[in-house]
């Protein structure tokens, strides 16, 4: 045998075995289907469950995305020292000018806005809307939140400096108050104070996750107009990208400790929350759930494997004479082993394929249920590869015993078999 043949021969043998196996499956159609039903159901449920979880994860991540994953919140917060120390609000609260040098000292922070929010009723003419978010903001708020003014103008520095009674409203507030298409210049009541509308801001992306019974209408007023030392404020900063969130957090911590004259042995008396951290946490929880669910359903594949083993044993004993003849004309034990192993694997892989189709079908059904909010459900590539890998492995594992049995058969005994 020349070297090329040596190289090609095993490939040819495998390819022939695959054909032989397909022929065998075709010859026993009904039996093959019944045998692989365990694998089919296993793969279908694994892929559908993973697709559903992927869809869920995707829709949550999209919400995070619209919320802004580069955001960093800075809030006054009593340190958890364990001792029963009572912190006075006066010591905890942020001061108006605490953040004036933050951008110079925190290179990872792109911009920030001081926000102080409270809820109030608003009204215009006969229209009233209660429980509305009133937020005092800095002009940079638009960059931090990535929400721009679609009509009119943003706040100017003068608005802030003079704490003028001007406001921006969102589209929803405009509609609820029954204001004109161009409400700029109109006066609305916020609580018992009159504010002049100077512009309209994009409504925030729909976020069912973070809503908590408050009205979707929003009113924004200059920071200085809203600020009172008693209410205090928080800071929402935007890091230059979600990737540098950790750096931004470290820089801000350092800056804040310095600003608040904390000694090395004193704990932080503020808190920094990084949205990216929540995203990371959520992602890891989601993958853990996916893995657990995949693992549990994967067990059903093993059960399917027992069916495969059973049918392969039947096949070996049915075809004992054939095995004997093949051996008599020169099939080595390894060739017989390969033939039966490949047959088991072909069965499993065909089952895997049918299961995958089933999984795609279930996924399509899930997607079409509007309440399920799984419109982003899809079977990821790795899940497809995994199911096929698993199906092949099941075939290998459970086909091994029958195949070894076939390979070990004594040719003359096999030929005598009735």
């Amino acid at each position: 045998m020349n070297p090329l043949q040596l190289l090609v021969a095993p490939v040819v043998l495998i390819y022939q075995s695959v054909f032989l196996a397909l022929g065998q499956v075709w010859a026993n159609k009904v039996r093959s289907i019944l045998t692989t039903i365990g694998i089919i159901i296993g793969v279908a449920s694994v892929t559908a469950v993973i697709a559903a979880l992927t869809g869920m994860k995707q829709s949550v991540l999209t919400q995070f995305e619209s919320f802004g994953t580069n955001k960093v919140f800075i809030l006054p917060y009593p340190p958890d020292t364990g001792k029963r120390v009572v912190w006075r609000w006066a010591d905890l609260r942020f001061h108006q000018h605490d953040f004036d040098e933050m951008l110079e000292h925190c290179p990872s922070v792109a911009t920030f806005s001081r926000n102080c929010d409270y809820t109030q009723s608003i009204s215009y003419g006969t229209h009233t809307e209660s429980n509305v978010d009133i937020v005092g903001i800095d002009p940079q708020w638009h960059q931090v939140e990535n929400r721009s003014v679609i009509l009119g103008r943003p706040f100017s520095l003068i608005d802030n400096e003079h704490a003028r009674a001007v406001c921006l409203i969102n589209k929803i507030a405009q509609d609820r108050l029954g204001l004109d298409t161009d409400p700029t210049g109109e006066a609305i009541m916020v609580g018992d104070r009159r504010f002049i509308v100077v512009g309209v801001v994009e409504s925030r992306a729909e976020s069912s996750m973070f809503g908590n019974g408050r009205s979707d209408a929003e009113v924004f007023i200059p920071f200085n107009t809203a600020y009172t030392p008693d209410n205090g404020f928080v800071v929402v900063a935007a890091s230059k990208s979600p990737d540098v969130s950790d750096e931004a957090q470290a820089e801000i911590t350092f800056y804040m400790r310095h600003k608040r004259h904390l000694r090395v042995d004193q704990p932080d008396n503020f808190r920094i929350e990084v949205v990216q951290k929540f995203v990371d946490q959520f992602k890891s929880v989601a993958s853990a759930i996916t893995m657990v669910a995949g693992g549990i359903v994967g067990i059903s594949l093993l059960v399917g494997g027992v069916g495969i083993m059973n049918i392969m044993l039947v096949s070996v004993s049915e075809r004992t004479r054939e095995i004997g003849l093949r051996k008599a004309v020169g099939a080595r034990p390894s060739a017989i082993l390969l033939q039966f192993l490949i047959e088991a694997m072909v069965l499993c892989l065909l089952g895997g394929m049918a299961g995958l189709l089933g999984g795609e079908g279930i996924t399509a059904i899930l997607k079409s249920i509007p309440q399920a909010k799984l419109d982003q459900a899809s079977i990821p590539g790795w899940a497809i590869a995994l199911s096929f890998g698993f199906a092949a492995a099941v075939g290998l594992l459970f086909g091994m015993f029958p195949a070894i049995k076939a390979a070990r058969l004594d040719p003359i005994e096999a030929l005598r078999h009735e």
Partner: protein
Amino acid sequence: MVIRLRNITKVYRVGAERIAALNGVNLDVDRNEYVAVMGASGSGKSTLMNILGCLDRPTGGTYELDGRLTTSMGASALAHVRNERIGFVFQSFELLPRLTALKNVELPLIYARAGWFSRRARAKKAIETVGLSDRMRHRPNQLSGGQRQRVAIARALVARPAILLADEPTGNLDSRTSEEILALFNQLHRSGQTIIMVTHEPDVARHAKRIIRMKDGRVHSDLPVEEDPVSELPAPTPLAGIPLEVSA
């Protein structure tokens, strides 16, 4: 010497009982011999053939085939020997029912790892040799008994084996079809093939050049056909119209 058997024994155990099917067989077969093995039922003919065909292992003794000691070989090496050097023809044909005649004949070449083209070509040639070119695409159940046996012979010959072994190749055939098969054997023998066949029938054995008679697991007599009693029987009336000119 193609075959050299020395003191071959075969003992079967059935429960507590030991059945000695072969009791020390010594046998030499040279290239291009045509041997018929005869003997009463149960005298060990099939057992001997299975050992010659490396389908079965003897309990004791040595067997050299083409100068190689097969009795010390492993299962894989024996498979290789069967594939390369032995063509076995069974009484009950043993064709795979789902394969066409051609595919059945190709089978040994698959395990010889021959390429597709040479496999096809050689299988077709072997089928031609047995005169079944027009039945290549038939399945075994679409063939007559004689045709099936000829397919089986083509399969045995396709890998150009050193020896052709046939255990009662005509046992399942009528006398006319048997004559066809024997004519084929004669022709193969003339073209140089070494043949060993088992038979009960003197009329069949008469075609061989050497007759071995077995008794109780031993070689009872081993004579050229002219000296064996089979040649003393009246010659059978030649059957009319048997075409002996199968294409070579």
